[in-house]
């Protein structure tokens, strides 16, 4: 049997919760190979589940530690990481939860997981200064004309049929935990103007504006693009306040 296949058998045996260890292993002093193989199996299960628990604290809070541990173990077995960068692990966790039968009674759970995933992305994304209302207000018309704006690299958003912002805030300890009187959908804006990730409500028209801002545009072009969906005046100021916009270019040229 080529060595390549031996590695693969070893790895697959680690992911099988109760299977036998692969052949060819020995343990000193007549100790059981299975007992020692279980040390590795435990490390894999525990550390990868912990990585998910760190990335999805509010999902964990919503379902409780035992439920989360079971869901995480099932996900690890079904979809082990494909990269050593564990900050990227869990990109598929929300979709997994949507198909995880024990979570069927919690239809809002996948969107809460999607929101937490966006917060992890934001946390690790490229640094950039956020444009401010004051920064724009201080510009002369000559300075403002060639300036272009774009989505800040750490800005993300999620439009949900579930009250994801309220659910997140309550279960992260930012709001008192009270029964929700009405389950209206909410749209979330995730930003990181400096080092701390912020979660705010996405303003009306904010999703259209952020989509438009994928390409750097001048204020005049933005205004024109937003005309059919209610204009720039409603959505831009709150996006600036949240740090969702960066200055892409100035009269001096392109900025990073």
């Amino acid at each position, binding site marked *: 049997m080529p060595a390549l296949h031996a*590695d693969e058998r070893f*790895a697959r045996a680690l992911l099988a919760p109760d299977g036998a260890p692969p052949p060819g292993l020995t343990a000193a002093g007549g100790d059981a190979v299975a*007992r020692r193989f279980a040390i590795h199996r435990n490390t894999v299960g525990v550390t990868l589940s912990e990585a998910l628990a760190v990335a999805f604290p509010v999902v964990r809070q919503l379902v409780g530690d035992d439920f989360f541990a079971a869901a995480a173990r099932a996900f690890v077995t079904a979809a*082990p990481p494909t990269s050593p960068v564990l900050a990227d692990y869990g990109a598929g966790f929300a979709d997994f939860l949507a198909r995880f039968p024990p979570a069927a009674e919690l239809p809002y759970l996948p969107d809460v997981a999607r929101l937490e995933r966006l917060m992890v992305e934001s*946390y690790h994304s490229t*640094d950039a200064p956020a444009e401010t209302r004051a920064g724009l207000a201080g510009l002369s018309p000559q300075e403002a004309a060639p300036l272009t704006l774009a989505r800040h690299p750490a800005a993300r958003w999620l439009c949900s049929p579930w009250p994801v912002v309220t659910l997140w805030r309550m279960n992260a300890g930012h709001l008192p935990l009270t029964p929700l009187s009405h389950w209206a959908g909410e749209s979330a804006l995730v930003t990181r103007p400096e080092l701390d990730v912020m979660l705010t409500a996405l303003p009306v028209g904010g999703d259209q504006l952020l989509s438009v801002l994928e390409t750097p545009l001048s204020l005049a072009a933005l205004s024109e693009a937003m005309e059919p969906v209610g204009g720039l005046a409603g959505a831009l100021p709150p996006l600036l306040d949240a740090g969702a916009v960066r200055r892409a270019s100035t009269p001096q040229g392109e900025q990073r």
Partner: protein
Amino acid sequence: MSQVSMMPQRGGAARAPALPPGPGVGFKPQHFADIIAAPQPLAFFEVHAENYMGEGGRPHAQLARLRRDHALSIHGVGLALGGSGPLDGAHLARLARLCERYEPESFSEHLAWAGHGGMFLNDLLPLPYTPERLATVAAHVEQAQEALKRPILIENPATYLTFAESSIPEGEFLAELTRRTGCGLLLDVNNLFVSAINHGLDPDRMLAALPLDRVGEIHLAGHVPAASPGTAPLLVDAHGSHVSAPVWALFARVLRRTGPVATLIEWDNDVPDWPTLRAEAERAGAHLLQARKAA
């Protein structure tokens, strides 16, 4: 003086600066405020490369700040140099970028693997010590040194299992690896002790077989006993407690052979408060001071 800077240049690996021969700790973000609040009696910090692979944000802000005042060791846990399959080229490129960004005094990885066929299991898995695997691992180390533009250190593993097909003792495997590739040795004294106990071997004899002239860094950490009554002795490399008395004693015997070498306290689980971790590093520092006087 560490051995790293005196290594022969092989495989295109350029000369790299060495870690200063003092005590260091594995950096934990929860200690950041304590660390920058006052000058620290530490020679270096070590970070896990894989925790700094995002583009920006707090991880890089903290690491850049630490880097300003301290020597830095970047320690990879995911390159799988010990695997039989090819290295993950994308991951190697990320590591190269991280080394360019921070210019660490040392880059180290493990004699271990972590997955197969694009799967990553986040554990340091054992490998068979055979001539075939030695050739594969040597090629991986050379590829890594080319990509990172520096000689690297390879850490001896803590193991629980052995392979029936293994034909080369671990010390000899590592010695031959350093000879073929010009890499250095990251001597994890706790791993050495754990492996010796787990395989019924004498740690001092295992030590004697290692290429001690190539040690560029030492790791110390805590372990926990895991044997059930009536079964063979078993220690688990848990990194969640103080360094044990027999490992301190073995460390002192190592230093008699190597002289003072950059020594790291690895405390990754149940991480203590900063004064406790720093005190553990200062204890290592006292050993290093003694080794310097004896040299």
